[in-house]
């Protein structure tokens, strides 16, 4: 075999080093959204231009605008996120962060970032994950399984109403879902800032989506960092769909559930016991 010249040896050594550096798992520096790969280095530029004024250069939610904003911008150093497909207490998937960024947060200052390209958003997701060491030591949780939605029926709605009473959703969201339950005024988030429960009578989109599947996911995973707990250990999938169907009747929207409910209520209103504390509603 012909001995390598020193230059060839040097070059191949450098190549090996570069390869080794590139092959090291830098999971936290990347994001994967479908076939799209986001890179933190590119994401930093996006972040510095569009996100930094609220979320801050260190990602701790204390950007220049933060003091004027309520609810406060997310503190990425805690790696606690509201909108996840994963169980409470686990990290969200890249897809979850991508969707939250694209969707924006209704009733907050966070707009939908659809004007950015998908690549821009994927890069920003990768960069956001560099702010907390949790992304280097922990994996994203496994998304919960959402079975196909059964057709809405009045029986399902009534069962869901029973769960709204039994699970004591009304304690915060109010007997009629107006966000005025007895604990509503005392709710605070993980930074001790006041936070109101969702008011169904506004009919607005939810913070974490708008479809029935989104609604299912919201109460089965909980909104981490907020008072909204996960009911994933307490509700079976059938129960969860019943609750989804009932919650839709609380909104002033033209949904199939609301139509079923109105038709049934016309002849059965007097059969209903009011929701609220046992022994009489508020």
């Amino acid at each position, binding site marked *: 075999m012909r001995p390598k010249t020193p230059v060839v040896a040097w070059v191949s050594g450098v190549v090996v080093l570069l390869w080794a550096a590139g092959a090291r798992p830098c999971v936290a520096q990347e994001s994967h959204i479908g076939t799209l790969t986001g890179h933190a280095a590119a994401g930093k530029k996006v972040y510095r231009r569009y996100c930094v004024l609220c979320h801050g250069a260190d990602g701790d939610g204390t950007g220049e605008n933060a003091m004027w904003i309520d609810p406060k911008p997310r503190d990425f150093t805690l790696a606690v996120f509201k909108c996840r497909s994963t169980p409470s207490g686990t990290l969200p998937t890249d897809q979850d962060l991508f969707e939250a960024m694209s969707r924006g947060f209704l009733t907050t200052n966070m707009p939908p970032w659809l004007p950015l390209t998908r690549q821009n958003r994927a890069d920003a997701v990768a960069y956001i994950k560099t702010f907390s060491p949790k992304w280097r030591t922990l994996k994203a949780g496994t998304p919960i399984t959402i079975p196909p939605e059964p057709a809405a029926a009045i029986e399902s709605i009534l069962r869901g109403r029973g769960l709204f009473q039994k699970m004591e959703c009304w304690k915060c969201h109010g007997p009629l879902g107006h966000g005025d339950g007895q*604990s509503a005024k005392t709710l605070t988030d993980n930074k001790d800032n006041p936070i109101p429960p969702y008011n169904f009578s506004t009919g607005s989109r939810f913070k974490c989506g708008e479809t029935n599947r989104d609604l299912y996911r919201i109460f089965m995973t909980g909104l*981490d960092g907020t008072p909204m707990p996960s009911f994933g250990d*307490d509700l079976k999938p059938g129960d969860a769909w019943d609750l989804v169907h009932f919650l839709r009747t609380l909104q002033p929207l033209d949904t199939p559930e609301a139509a079923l409910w109105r038709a049934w209520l016309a002849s059965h209103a007097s059969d209903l016991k009011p929701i609220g504390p046992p022994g009489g509603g508020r």
Partner: protein
Amino acid sequence: MRAPYVAVVVTLALGTSATPLRPAPSAGATISGKITYTGVPPKMKPIDMAKEPSCAAQHTAAPVTTENVVTGPGNALRYVVVYVSSGDQPAPPPAEAVRYDQKGCQYIPHVAVLDVNQPLDIYNDDQTSHNIHPLAKQNPEWNKSQPIGAPPIHTKFEKPEFIPVKCNVHPWMHGWFVVLPTTHHALSGPDGEFSITGLAPGKYTVTAWHEQFSSLSEDVSVSGSETKTVNFTFKATLY
């Protein structure tokens, strides 16, 4: 339902007086002492549970107050976590779970002390839904609902941390999970007394932590099966 447990305890006490229930102090040295305070501690606020009649009914005899600063006779300070903060050898966590109850819309005990990775079982004994919300920063922050009659939540924490716990439905409910990287820890009782047993001979730093009065530390050397007394006195502040 208590009868079987009482029977077991009585049997153990009568039949095996030489076998204590807890690890024998003779297996190592003991550090014990009393936690007290100087100054004027803040008055605890009464809790009105009228919005939760099932819980209010359990406290008609003795009104409930907040538990941030619980004092006893002789300036005793309760719910102080005393633990070996340096000098300890790493040891596997006990397999025995720490029990944390939600009863009468209170956390019992107010402070749960556990080892890293030690099992923690959280029970809802009330006729109302609770949500358990440990506001962790080093560990994952989660928030789970526990309706009436729901099974206990089994969990553990992988990193040492002082974690405030709250129930969002009942805003007065406030407790702590104190997760420590040592098996040598104790919680001061109503009389302020604590006792850390089973220490190997050596030089240790013992730290006492109180949720409102911060923490105090002292260096202690122990040998054989001696019992050393270490008292901590916190300076009470109103805020």
